[in-house]
């Protein structure tokens, strides 16, 4: 990491009052001579401290070896104490409670991104499910059988949690990387990137985040759900391709302000803001699913049906912090409309972990598959080039990519086109830092891990 990665360090470095140049000038040489003579004059022959550097380092190495050995012994002893020295596992040691075992069998189904199920894609799914089990702290095993079957055995699950476990393990967890400015739409239905050269105020707000300071935040140009869905529903359908995250349309039903349907929705527990359209049901992938989600005694004809066609997505704004989670139905929730043109999917990401960067700031690190690395470089190069193009007259308009998981923005990192004029190569992976707390870094890493399910899973049996 260089100074220029961090605005505070860069600003301080620019204010450095004494730059060290390669060759000392006459004044510095004179000062050096003066100091050297002074030192040697004060103490021409100091006593030796009697320990040569090489001996000292050898001593440190031996000490470190002793400490390391002690740590190993301590760890072994601690494990013996914890589990009673009987050799039983941690899970068995918790004994006494009933430990139901759930066996789930899934069939892996192709997606536009993974059109054929291979042993490699099954391996990726297996790893992703193991990560889910680990995150949820569930004990279990995953194994592949046949050319498209997976068996997941989870133990210690209370009966009332079984449905949640089934859903959590098999949920698609759609993870997508978008080119933010190229895909996000202003209220006039045009992309931000297309309007930045004209300094369109709405485009600038979405790109810079304006007073929110971070694009993709609720206050950074996000729309209430009705307005966002209305805007999204005005877009035509786009043919299915490998870049699309959602196959088919998505349906929403809204009630008119003050309508009987909104009153019924409120009685059903849905938040309703006076004077605004209320959400009656949705998003749903089919009309029948939409009907099933309607409030009691409300029919579809009582609301306004809005259809978001294939090729457009409505994404909820990023949560302000990891602990400040705004529910989808909250009146405070805000949304952005994007072209559904995904640059990277979960299948392209490997090993996401929360960490700290070399300056001690929380970060999220992840690697790529070979195809993912190429896609990430292409994405970030496009973003960096656009940043150069739209930054004119001393104004730097850094551009961004957006990471979304299951319909919500997670983070919108910027690409510094001065540092990465041709994008981030990502040979050793990439690192998202800044605007993160330790909790939010952990949260994002967990979401990236959950989102790495490359194919659809159909639950065949649960016993």
């Amino acid at each position, binding site marked *: *990491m260089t*100074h220029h*990665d961090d605005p*505070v*360090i860069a600003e*301080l*470095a620019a*204010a*450095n*009052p*004494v*730059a*060290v140049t390669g060759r*000392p000038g006459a004044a*510095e040489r004179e*000062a*050096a001579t*003066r*100091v*050297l003579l*002074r*030192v*040697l004059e004060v*103490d021409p*022959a*100091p006593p*030796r*401290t*009697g320990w*040569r*550097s090489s001996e*000292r*380092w050898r001593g440190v190495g031996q000490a470190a070896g002793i400490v390391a050995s002690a740590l190993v012994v301590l760890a072994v002893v601690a494990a013996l104490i914890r589990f009673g020295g009987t050799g039983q596992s941690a899970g068995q040691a918790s004994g006494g409670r009933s430990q139901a075992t759930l066996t789930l069998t899934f069939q892996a189904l192709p997606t536009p991104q993974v059109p054929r199920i291979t042993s490699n894609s099954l391996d990726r799914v297996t790893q992703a499910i193991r990560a889910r089990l680990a995150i949820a702290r569930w004990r279990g095993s995953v194994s592949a059988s046949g050319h498209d079957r997976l068996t997941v055995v989870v133990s210690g699950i209370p009966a009332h949690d079984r449905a949640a476990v089934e859903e959590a393990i098999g949920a698609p967890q759609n993870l997508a990387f978008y080119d933010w400015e190229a895909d996000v739409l202003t209220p006039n239905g045009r992309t931000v990137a297309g309007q930045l050269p004209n300094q369109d105020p709405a485009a600038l707000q979405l790109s810079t985040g304006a007073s929110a*300071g*971070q694009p993709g935040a609720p206050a950074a140009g996000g729309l209430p759900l009705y307005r966002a869905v209305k805007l999204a529903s005005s877009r035509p359908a786009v043919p299915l391709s490998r870049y699309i995250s959602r196959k088919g349309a998505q349906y929403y039903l809204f009630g008119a302000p003050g309508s009987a349907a909104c009153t019924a929705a409120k009685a059903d527990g849905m938040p309703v803001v006076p004077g605004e359209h209320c959400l009656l049901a949705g998003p749903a992938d089919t009309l029948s699913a939409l009907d099933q989600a309607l409030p009691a005694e409300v029919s579809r004809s009582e609301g306004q049906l809005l259809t978001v066609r294939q090729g457009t997505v409505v994404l909820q704004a990023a949560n302000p912090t990891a602990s400040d989670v705004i529910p989808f139905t909250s009146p405070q929730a805000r949304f952005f409309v994007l072209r559904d043109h995904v640059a990277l999917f979960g299948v392209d990401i490997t090993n996401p972990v929360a960490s*700290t960067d*070399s*300056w*001690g*700031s929380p970060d999220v690190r992840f690697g790529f598959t070979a195809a993912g690395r190429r896609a990430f470089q292409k994405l*970030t190069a496009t973003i960096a080039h656009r940043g150069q193009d739209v930054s004119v007259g001393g104004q730097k308009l*850094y551009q961004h990519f957006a990471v979304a998981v299951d319909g919500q923005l997670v*983070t*919108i*990192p*910027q*690409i*510094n086109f001065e540092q*990465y004029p041709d994008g*981030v190569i*990502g040979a*050793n992976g*990439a*690192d*998202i*830092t*800044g*605007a*993160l*707390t330790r909790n939010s870094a952990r949260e994002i890493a967990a979401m990236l891990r959950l989102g790495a399910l490359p194919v659809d899973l159909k639950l065949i049996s649960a016993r």
Partner: protein
Amino acid sequence: MPADDARRKEFELLFAANHGPVRAYVLRRAPVVVDDVVAETFLAAWRRLDTIGEDPLPWLLGVARRALANQLRAERRREALTRRLRREPVGAYTWEPPDSMSPALADAMASLSWREREALLLVAWEGLDPARAAVAAGCTAAAFRVRLHRARRRVAAALQHGDEHGTSTAIVKEIR
């Protein structure tokens, strides 16, 4: 070569390689006492030459920091400011921002504890990475990273570069 000559040669090599950065370190913080502090620093190095490791600069800067604090404390004592300085921890020196620093940045830096301020300056001005800067600051690398992160966050907030999360904008970096 006699042992004392070899020792002196070794010291001169160390001095030649590090005098510039040590002098710059002191000049950046207290130009008026630069010769005294640099001399005291290298005198310590001369006396403890055998114990200095293969990367002497962080060690030398740590000595310079303490020498600087002692020098300034002596100066201030003469100026009857002893009482205030006595409350400052050992190793601290009084912060005086350079003219090259904007008022906003100078105010932000002045709001930090001396440890936090020194953490930022070791990185931004001396160009040390956190592991080496920790040696100069006299703490563990882990403690230094925490100190540095906290300092950056506070300055960023003061400069409105950031908010409670540190820098307000997420950025992406290559992993090297």
